[in-house]
């Protein structure tokens, strides 16, 4: 339960600045996701908030109190690591209780809290096992359980799902979303490079690029009104189509963005773009057509699963005009 403010936070390693002045306000009980490509500084930013790295310049405030020089254990945080960071020689129970044993809580209370967290995550039958006897998903639950037991103000997740396989990732994602509902007072910060995780989990998303905040907003805001070509291309799957040159000039912009689901196949007379289907991807519910219209890259068009078209078909396409994203020469919206 903490409000976290970052004021012009900077981090340098020697002469290299990796976090270049970040201002961000994370509300109480909010689920904030940091997302961005590798090397954008999202993990570093999380480590600055956790206190594992020292802030070079700027202020970090927890509930209006400057915590720049407060050691990690005094910040009221819990962290879930990408590699789980479980102690391999300790049983699950000891892994979860280890951090509490010195905070002088009595053993009964420690046990009660461990059991409660274990039940919450359905790992109570695993408490006597060693980490190596668990599956990846179970290990990740133990790591989350260890964090819950600490009863933190702030929950930090550093790419917690990236070591899991695709099916498990979806399950654990759901688990984390449920956890977020159950612990509505706890502020959660979650780092990922996967925009699907960001879209599905976040109350708000902070898109980072090259050590700077690119845009902050709810998933819908980022999806519907991205404030740069970068955000437009990063959020959404499959990616937004970008058209340049004469295609864009026809709409008075430098770069024209249009999502695959906002393009329809129309009859010849109403068509704005014409081209040939060069490839089709049938995902069952969706059918993605790759249409060569003479632009830099083929245009991706989403259709319903049953509405596929044969490769080689000549078709006409029209975008939904209200859903066009027009960007100027500075890559910002016009």
């Amino acid at each position, binding site marked *: 339960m903490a409000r976290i403010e970052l004021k012009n936070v900077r981090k340098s390693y020697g002469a290299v600045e990796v976090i270049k002045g970040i201002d961000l306000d994370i509300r109480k009980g909010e689920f904030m996701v940091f997302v961005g490509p590798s090397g954008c500084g999202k993990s570093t930013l999380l480590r600055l908030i956790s206190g*594992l790295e020292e802030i070079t310049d700027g202020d970090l405030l927890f509930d209006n109190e400057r915590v720049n020089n407060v050691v990690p*254990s005094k910040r009221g945080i*819990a962290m879930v*690591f990408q590699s789980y*960071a479980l*102690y391999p*020689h300790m049983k699950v129970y000891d892994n979860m209780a280890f*951090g509490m044993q010195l905070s002088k809580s009595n053993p009964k209370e420690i046990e009660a809290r461990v059991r409660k967290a274990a039940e919450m995550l359905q790992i109570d039958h695993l408490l006597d096992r060693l980490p190596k006897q668990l599956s990846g998903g179970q290990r990740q639950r133990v790591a989350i359980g260890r964090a819950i037991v600490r009863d933190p103000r702030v929950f930090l997740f550093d790419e917690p799902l990236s070591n899991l396989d695709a099916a498990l990732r979806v399950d654990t994602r759901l688990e984390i979303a449920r956890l977020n509902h159950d612990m509505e007072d706890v502020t959660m910060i979650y780092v990922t490079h996967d925009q699907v995780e960001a879209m599905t989990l976040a109350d708000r998303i902070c898109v980072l690029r090259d050590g700077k905040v690119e845009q902050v907003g709810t998933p819908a805001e980022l999806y519907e009104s991205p404030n740069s070509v970068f955000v437009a291309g990063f959020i959404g799957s499959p990616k937004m189509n970008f058209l340049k040159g004469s295609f864009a000039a026809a709409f008075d912009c430098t770069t024209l963005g249009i999502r695959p689901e906002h393009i329809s196949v129309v009859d010849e007379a109403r068509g704005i773009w014409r081209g040939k289907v060069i490839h089709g991807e049938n995902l069952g519910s969706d059918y993605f057509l790759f249409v060569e219209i003479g632009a830099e890259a083929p245009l991706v068009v989403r259709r319903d699963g049953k509405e596929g078209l044969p490769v080689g078909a000549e078709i006409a396409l029209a975008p939904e005009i209200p859903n066009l994203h027009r960007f100027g020469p500075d890559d910002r919206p016009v």
Partner: protein
Amino acid sequence: MAQSFTGRERSLQQQRVRAAYTFLAPMLIMLAVVAAWPLLRSIGFSFTDATADTIFNGESKWVGFENYLERRVRSNGEVRWRGVLVDPDWWNAVWNTVRFSAVSVALEATLGLLVALVLNAEFKGRGLVRAAILIPWAIPTVVSARMWGWMLNDQFGVINHMMMSVGLIDAPIAWTAQADTAMLAVLIVDVWKTTPFMALLMLAGLQMIPRDMYEAAKIDGIHPIRVFFKVTLPLLKPAILVAVIFRALDALRIFDLIYLLTPQSDATVTMSVLSYRELQQFGDYGEGSAMSTLLFLIITGFVLLYIKLGRVDLTGSKS
């Protein structure tokens, strides 16, 4: 159809096994020539009365276990036992070797761990220090034994000089010659020489421990000393066990340092030195070989016991 399929699979497996043996063959032949054959010869000699004169002309005789233990009845009916197993010199050497090994390995492991912990921390010039610390290990034993021999010398040695000038001792000590200090001198030099090796083995182990384990502990606010005993030490245990076994093998068959630093001293003579004396100086190949064989058996027994008790994972199959 199914049968021909499995038949082909097996032959692929056979091909792999054959390829493996082909690659292993040079190594196996080499080991047989330089390790297995000398070892078997030596064990063979221990059952003969071979001496320097008879060893090559084939006049030595098979004497069974006489070199190890022999019961002799004198004309007056008195029973006498002889052989290595009742030789007080041999048991003195065994005791010296065990004592030396236990103390030196314990000291080197402890100091090596401390040095490794320091070298594992991040500081400027760490690479240089890591390289520099290996210098004692890199110096040939002959050189370091002579060097320390001079430093410990009772008349000209710098160590006596320093200890006298600060008033620790009144009269110079003949470190390497006196029976009560000879073992101490050998231990000092061996610890000086071998601690870096231990430190490097343990440093390698320390570097295998994932950093986020420490970060998790840091977020939990666990005291560094508790982290050391509860996290670092248990995770380092396999590396420590392997380092100790390497060192113990070396220590149990120590020869050069003792032979060079404290020659002829009964206080330090080890199994290797004694069997060398028997073989080379007295030319008694039978009894010398018996000693070598016993040394071999003792080391083998120790290693097997150690692996069993420590559950050392030498094959790496557990990790």
